[in-house]
């Protein structure tokens, strides 16, 4: 979680599909999410319900995610329930945005790529605000 300094001073819940990640960070709360990709329709339906429950319970002011599918669904429910929603595409995607990152502009307030040329090539919905490197 290279972005952690951006949240300092706020009340943070960290959700990840990798429970082992929880040990590495000093956030107030950790929530483990099931993992799936966009080809796994049934799992995605279950994920829709899971992320709905999480976001309804937390009622976050801001939802921020680098992906993948479970993070995108958290953003979707965050938007529905009135949160500010931010997608930060992983710096690993230097050739094109991830599949989830290409869907994010449909409903997120802010969509970022960490590569300037990808922002330039987009229609303006994808911005470049810097990168973690």
């Amino acid at each position, binding site marked *: 979680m290279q972005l952690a300094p951006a949240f300092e001073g706020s009340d943070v819940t960290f959700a990840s599909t990798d429970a082992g990640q929880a040990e590495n960070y000093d956030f107030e709360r950790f929530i483990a999410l099931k993992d799936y990709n966009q080809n796994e329709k049934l799992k995605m339906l279950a994920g829709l319900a899971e992320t709905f429950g999480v976001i309804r319970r937390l009622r976050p002011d801001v939802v921020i995610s680098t992906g993948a599918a479970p993070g995108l669904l958290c953003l979707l429910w965050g938007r529905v329930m009135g949160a500010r929603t931010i997608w930060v595409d992983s710096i690993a995607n230097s050739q094109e945005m991830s599949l989830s990152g290409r869907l994010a502009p449909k409903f997120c307030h802010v969509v970022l790529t960490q590569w300037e040329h990808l922002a330039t090539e987009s229609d303006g919905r994808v911005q470049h605000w810097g990168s973690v*490197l």
Partner: protein
Amino acid sequence: MIFLTLGTQLPFDRLVEAVDNAVDGLDEEIFGQIGKSGYKPKNMQVTDYMTPREFNDRFAAARVIVAHAGIGSILSGFNAGKPLVIMARRAELGEHRNDHQLATVAQMQRIPGIHVAETTEDLRRYFADPDLLAMSAGETPERTRLIGNLRKEIFG
């Protein structure tokens, strides 16, 4: 110690051979985690796989890290504040599915502490430099800008 790390996905014989030639005669320990390499190094100790703990220990102990131009390697070098020498895998040589590492290298060579190598001579020059610039652990202008912009967005 010079630590060459290639991950486990694809071999990268060109870099292994270049490092092996560049360290010939060098008075320093060289350790390589090289996956399934077709080239058999003569001048360094190698393994194909390391546990995460072994990897972290080698990484922490190294004076210089040599790696392919993968984001994972670059983030590791950045977090550890080490000098990082990278070579891009090329699709035309069968080293990767596409040439995205060339794009990565083009973008990354602006970062202090990242040293791009194309040849054995490049490597030899970097290895011979006792003051090879290290990455500044935890800060770059681009990172400061991203974190600052996100804080503005989050906190208003």
